[in-house]
């Protein structure tokens, strides 16, 4: 077992990179682990590689290119970086179990920064398990990581900033047959306006300008956009071939080659849940968030959660939350004085706040429809175990009170993804059925291994101990 680290940072997206750089520059012995082969997380995926690629970086835009500076600072710092490394178990005492190239390691730190980011909200619609149905984020990852863009007819269905951004990136990448099914409810607009005064303060106007720019670009390119789309269904035999949906009073059907879904992003809560960090339901973001103090420390001392994993804030704000965690840790380690802590904290907090002004407006405007949160009976909810919403409702009718009981009855959440995809939906269906609050309903009890580990791999670790 390795010596004690001052801090282990899990995840090298904007939050993790900033936390690690700040910690390391402050004199803390810091280790970074990330599943990907290079820094960037999903938002700045392959950013180092793409900086030499003029056409791809032009297409991905200046906000993406900003990630390169964070990666450069991280590389220049003394932090030890381990890429291609999965975390499959984390203990509340700061022990982190990793796996890389089939080799298991057990590491320990005084402090942990969980910066495992966001995942896309599951979008359970009929037919979503068919090949040819992906998420918008998945397609954007392919563009960033491999310079691959869809060809044939592409349908993007859902709502939220990423959907419109990716639509424009597709146009610039040469996608010529693009159809947008915008699921944002028109009724969201008026309540969202209440948050507009806040949204025009701080850095809000920059985000709003970017959004208007995207909408204008879509209009200029003459992209076919259906608005107020609901009741989306995807049909096909071997792969997705047709989308059927309601828009206004009409039901339409369009043929397609590839369809991508997106209803916003939610924290990737697997690690924090597995250690037992307390969570609470957030009605604005319609997901569970870990309970954090202002420095992003969780309910377990020494365990910090930076970035979107602590609540959706976006890439730049995530970096600032990473700085806050790092400052709190540096202070605890005695690496910075009270005065320096107070000064730097104030700067990071102010920068963070300026990027948060836009969130309530966006959260309200792109609030997912009920049919996404609690789908109809015939819809597969747990993709791994092929459990439909109706089966969950059946066990609720028979007295099932929570997700863990449903898991025992049905095996939902027990497949390879370990409930990552079905967890939010199963909880929502049960809460709706019992009339309990989401907090009272709770969530799957997440247990290690968080990633598949073989007995042989485990045994090899003990041989070395």
């Amino acid at each position, binding site marked *: 077992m390795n010596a004690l680290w001052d801090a282990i940072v899990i995840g090298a997206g904007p939050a993790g990179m900033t936390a690690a750089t700040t910690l390391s520059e402050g004199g803390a012995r810091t280790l970074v682990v990330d599943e990907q082969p290079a820094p960037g997380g999903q938002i700045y995926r392959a950013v180092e590689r793409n900086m030499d690629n003029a056409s791809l970086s032009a*297409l991905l835009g200046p906000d993406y290119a900003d990630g390169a500076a964070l990666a450069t600072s991280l590389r220049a710092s003394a932090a030890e970086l381990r890429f291609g490394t999965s975390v499959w178990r984390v203990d509340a005492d700061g022990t982190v179990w990793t796996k890389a190239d089939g080799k298991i390691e057990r590491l320990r730190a005084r402090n942990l920064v969980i910066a495992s980011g966001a*995942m*896309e909200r599951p979008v359970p619609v009929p037919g979503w398990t068919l090949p040819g149905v992906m998420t918008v984020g998945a397609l954007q990852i392919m563009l960033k990581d*491999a*310079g691959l863009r869809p060809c044939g007819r592409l349908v993007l269905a859902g709502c939220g900033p990423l959907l419109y951004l990716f639509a424009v990136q597709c146009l610039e990448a040469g996608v010529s047959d693009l159809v947008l099914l915008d699921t944002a409810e028109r009724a969201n607009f008026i309540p969202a306006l209440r948050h507009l005064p806040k949204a025009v303060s701080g850095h809000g106007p920059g985000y709003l300008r970017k959004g208007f720019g995207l909408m204008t670009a879509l209009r200029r390119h003459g992209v076919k956009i259906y608005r107020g789309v609901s009741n989306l269904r995807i049909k096909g035999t071997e*792969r997705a071939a047709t989308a059927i949906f309601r828009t206004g009073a009409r039901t339409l059907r369009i043929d397609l080659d590839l369809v991508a879904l997106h209803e916003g992003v939610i924290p990737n809560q697997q690690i924090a849940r597995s250690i037992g960090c307390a969570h609470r339901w957030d009605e604005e973001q319609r997901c569970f968030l870990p309970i954090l103090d202002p420095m992003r420390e969780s309910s377990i001392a020494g365990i910090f959660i930076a970035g979107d994993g602590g609540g959706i804030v976006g890439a730049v704000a995530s970096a600032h939350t990473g700085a806050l965690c790092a400052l709190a840790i540096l202070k605890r380690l005695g690496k910075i004085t009270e005065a320096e802590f107070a000064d730097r904290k104030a700067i990071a907090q102010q920068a963070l706040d300026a990027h948060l002004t836009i969130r309530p407006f966006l959260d309200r405007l792109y609030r997912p429809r009920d049919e996404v949160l609690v789908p109809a009976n015939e819809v597969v909810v747990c993709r*791994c175990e092929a459990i439909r919403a109706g089966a969950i409702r059946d066990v609720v009718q028979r007295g099932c009170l929570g997700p863990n009981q449903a898991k025992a009855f049905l095996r939902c959440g027990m*497949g390879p993804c370990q409930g990552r995809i079905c967890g939010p939906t199963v909880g929502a269906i049960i809460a709706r059925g019992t009339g309990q609050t989401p907090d009272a309903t709770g969530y799957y009890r997440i247990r290690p291994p968080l990633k598949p580990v073989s007995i042989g791999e485990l045994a090899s670790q003990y041989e070395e101990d």
Partner: protein
Amino acid sequence: MFTRVERNSALPAGGNVLHFEGSPVPFQPGDSVAAALLAAGASPFRESPVDDSLRAPYCMMGVCFECLVEIDGRQNQQSCLTTARPGMIVKRQHGARTLG
């Protein structure tokens, strides 16, 4: 279903080929196995061990586990998290992985 943004770099550099179900699949350095397979039009990647329904990558970021394939004799590998290497032998994952 997918094409490279830069067409002139579509031909693989020397030796960047893996094998999927016996057919050569060219890839670019840095591609994940999943991206290389999708670029080659390979679909599905596996069948659900529960109901035999066909599956292919959904999230491309290690969350959904729909991209599981057999790589160099090891089953249930997340192809979206595996960087493609020349000469890899990749096969569809049929049903649940076998023990041993």
